[in-house]
């Protein structure tokens, strides 16, 4: 196994995923297999090759600085699980 239980838990924490115990065990196995599989890449000779982040070799287009979006809060908040006075609610955040 290229990944152990603790590593999988650490990744799940970083990704904010709560795993059931059986999911956790299965992921140790399957993620290890995936990681072993993508390890094939290490064989490629990429000396001096520029990483390609995007299929397009063009520059970013820019938009004009104009306000185009009206207030549609109520409509946008119809999908929100918990809202009060226009605010999205989450469990108290303490800094």
């Amino acid at each position, binding site marked *: 196994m290229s*990944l152990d239980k603790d590593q*999988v838990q650490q*990744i*799940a*924490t*970083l*990704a*904010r*995923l*709560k*795993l*059931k115990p059986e*999911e956790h065990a*299965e*992921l140790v196995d*399957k*993620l290890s*297999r*995936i*990681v072993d*599989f*993508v*390890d*094939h*890449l*290490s064989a*490629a000779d*990429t000396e001096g*090759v*520029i*990483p*390609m*982040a*995007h*299929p*397009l070799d*063009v520059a*970013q*287009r820019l*938009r004009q600085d104009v306000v185009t979006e009206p207030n*549609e809060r109520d*409509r*946008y908040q*119809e*999908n*929100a*699980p*918990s809202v009060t006075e226009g605010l*999205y609610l*989450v*469990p*108290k*955040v303490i800094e």
Partner: protein
Amino acid sequence: MDLHAKTLTELAAGLDSGDYLSVELTQALLDRIAAHDEKLNAMITVTGDEALAAAAKADADRAAGNAGTLCGLPLIHKDIFCTRGVRTSCGSKMLDNFVSPYDATVVERLAAAGAVMLGKANMDEFAMGSSNETSYYGPVRNPWDLDRSPGGSSGGSAASVAARFTPAATATDTGGSIRQPAALTNTIGIKPTYGRVSRYGMVAFASSLDQAGVITRTAEDAARLLGVMAGFDERDSTCLDEPVPDYAADLGNSIKGLKIGVVRQHFDEGLDADCGARVREAIAALESLGATAVEVDMPNIDLSVPTYYVVAPAECSSNLSRFDGVRFGHRAKDTGDLFDLYCRSRGEGFGDEVKRRIMTGTYVLSAGYYDAYYLKAQQVRHLIADDFKRAFEDVDVIAGPTSPTAAFKLGAKVDDPITMYLNDIYTIGANLGGFPAMSIPCGFVGGLPVGLHLVGHHFDESALLRCAHAYQQETDWHTRCPEGFA
């Protein structure tokens, strides 16, 4: 009158000459979906009322002489496209309750041309899968054999076109999600050049690979729809301001003198021999139409799948972070603190495959692994794209199989992610390089359809459509209909 058997082009002519109304056509297809979808599970949401209203409006527009190019023509949208006022689930429990407040650009353009949406098609959850088995709404069945998968992720789109629920469906393709299901269901599937069609309003899986396209039964219909969908969109920075050719008009041009590259690496031991034979025959048929075929070498193409399974999960892990149970989507009940809210909402809202990809992506981007995986994959991606570019110096299109096998049994590959991932071995390269690509029905193996895969140079969808159209004029594979769906 078997309206469901007609192509989009035939229906357009029928509507134009007043043989039937869009309302009648729409009702006929809605009835058909109601009668047959229990077998297939191709649809997540059927929008009957909206469809009939849109059809009535189309009929009125036509009567008033205001018919748009797709006036009154039916289609189904993959449930990855945001549709205003209609649930957009993306095949996930996470978005089971999500009603989009806006239309995707693709949806908006097709509607503006007069198209009538019948409903939203089933798909692998967040487009992650090659069998449609990762959908929260259950797997889609292949109309050619109900025990088999129609492929994925656009399995619902492909099955609904194959089963004659609709002449056309939108779909998306990140690693083969349009072309592989098209191949497995005897339909045409085209993924245009990256940047040809706006991604705005398409729920993102892997932003540098995702591209919207269509599934139809004929190249002619695909050309017709693509002409409406394609083109610059100011809301998508990666959608290019390139002139869109008149695809439909280009179809008639001969393929005489067209040079086809056949990738040596695509006919190795991984390919089912019978499928390979059908593909060879199809290439020979294209040669008999005046094209010439030469072998091309793509030394890095074998690394496409591992490259993809670093790049796509990396991007997806970040793209799916917005699903946190705060502004939309599934939120777990009775959560404790914020951390608990996040972890449980996401843990409950996402299915197994999506979690695997998020985890893989998180891992390959994390400190200490970024260079070995993510950066390395970006470099190999460059090598693969260069393989294609080098090939296109000599040839106009690259041809090969779409999928290593014909449709496989449901459940056959679910336990082994790697076997599942290898389904896309021939299609992924086009996504990595942003090239347009297409699958065309080219025969059967044991009663199951096989697809011919074509890849074109950037922004040259026309070459692909022209090949497909010429081939469809000479063959009748695409007219074959699965038993029970005639």
